[in-house]
Every structure is written in C-alpha cells, then in structure tokens.
C-alpha cells in the first residue's frame, strides 16, 4: 500500500469515526429531549405511560425443553 492510499484510508476512517460520534451525540441529545418532555407531563399521563409499559405483553423466550 502506497503512502497516498494509506493516507486516504486514514481519512476515510476519521470520517467514519466522526460521523459515528456525531450519530451517538445526536441520539443522546434526542434522548435527553424526550426525557425532558416526559418530565414536564402531568402525573396522570406519566402513570398512563407506566401502566402501558406494565400491560404490554412480553414475548417469552422459548426454553430448550419446549423445542
């Protein structure tokens, strides 16, 4: 691999790293925004969210014996 090829590969890697970092940062920001919105909800609505979580059926993992 020549020096210029290595250089472009490093450049590509840095691009991927930056975009990944940006993606993570954006996701974190989004989550904080949702959390902030949730905080401001009235208590009754927060309880409704909790109740929806509690009543959502969870798909059970199949155990070896059943298979």
């Amino acid at each position, binding site marked *: 691999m020549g020096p210029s090829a290595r250089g472009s590969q490093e450049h590509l890697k840095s691009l991927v790293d930056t975009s990944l970092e940006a993606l993570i940062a954006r996701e974190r920001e989004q989550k904080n925004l949702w*959390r902030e919105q*949730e*905080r401001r909800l009235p*208590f*009754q609505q*927060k*309880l*409704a*969210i*909790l*109740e*929806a*979580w*509690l*009543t959502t059926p969870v798909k059970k993992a199949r155990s070896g014996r059943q298979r």
Partner: protein
Amino acid sequence: MRMLTCVRCGHTWLPRTKKPVQCPACHSSWWNRPRSAPRPREALSLHHPIFSLLNDLKKRRLIKDWVLYGALAYIYYEEVLLTRDADVLVTVYGKPGKLITPEYTAVLRELGARGRMVGEAATFELHGTPLHLQIFDATGHDQWEAMVADGLKTSIGEEQVKVASPEHLILMALQAYRPAKDMPRIPPLYRRASKKKLDQLLERFDRDGTLRSRLTRTLEVLG
C-alpha cells in the same frame, strides 16, 4: 349483474358471480362488511384502586393520612421509571407502639379483605390491579411522620394523592443509598429541592454527618 365496490379498499368491479368471495383487488373476504367504528380506548387506571382505597380508609378514619414515596413519587417529579410497587406510608390514630398496634392491624385486615398479601409482609395485590401496594406505619417515627405531614397534595381524576416532598425523597435515598436505585435519583431531585428545607431535615435526621458526605459525593460524581 351490477358493479360492486369493496368497502375496505374502494375498488369497483363487475363481478362474475352473485356473491363474490373476496375483493379482486385487496383480496379481502370482508369486502362488503364495513369496518366497525374504532372502540374508544379505555383509560388505563391500574393505580386508581390503590389511591381510591387509601382515601376510603382515610374517610372511614382507619388511617389519619397517607403519602406516596419511592419510585412513584420520583415519577411525579421526574421521568417515568418501570415499577410495579406503590410505596405508601400511613399514619393511624391511637398511640404508637413497638409492636403492630391494634389500629394498624385493622388497616392490614382491611387490605387483606380487598386483595391478597404477596411475598414479604405488608405487600398487597389489591383486587382490580396487578400492582403491589407496599405499606408501612409511620406513626411514632419522627422522620416518616414528617414525610407524611410535608407531602404535596395533588389529584388523579377525582382522587386526592399526597406525594412525598423532594427533600424527604433525597433524605430516604441517602439513607438507603443503593448504587443503582437511589444514587442516580438524588441529583435530579436535588435540583428541584428547597436547599433550606433539605438542610433542616439533615440537621434533624443526620446525626453523624454520613448523609451530608454522601450527598456531597453523589453531587460531585453524578450532579
């Protein structure tokens, strides 16, 4: 033979038979059965029976007052956490004793009649809700009685609900101080707590300064 229209997808066609089995476009066999009006979603109210029962006990003077603490109280101030428990402190009439008092026994008996006891003592699953009511008698316990007295009044529908103040929740979190459960709840509650009130509580209930140093450390690390 006349043209037919599918009520599901709106496709119109000239049928080959009198009673077509399905719509040739969307293949729905219910092509001639209109969609029923969407049923209004019933309001979820799993917590309602608990609040309603506690208010009923208060009205019948079986308890003096009650306050919500634990995860549900945290939810009142902050974001939603997953919890199945409703942690409640009550005060009863009569003199406090070392053992369970007759007044509090009457409360437990009443809860037993309205549901069933699960797992550890004083945890009830009431009829009409899968949630667990964890109840403790605060009568005669200085800190807990203050927590009931200082609670913030709010309402859920027609039911009055009393929620422990952020200062009391911080105090309790500092006492239990479980790394995963209590520590992360302290900084957000601290931001909305009255520093003066919290200081007064620590003055009263933190005799050797352990809770103060825990608070400082937590705010340094997580705040």
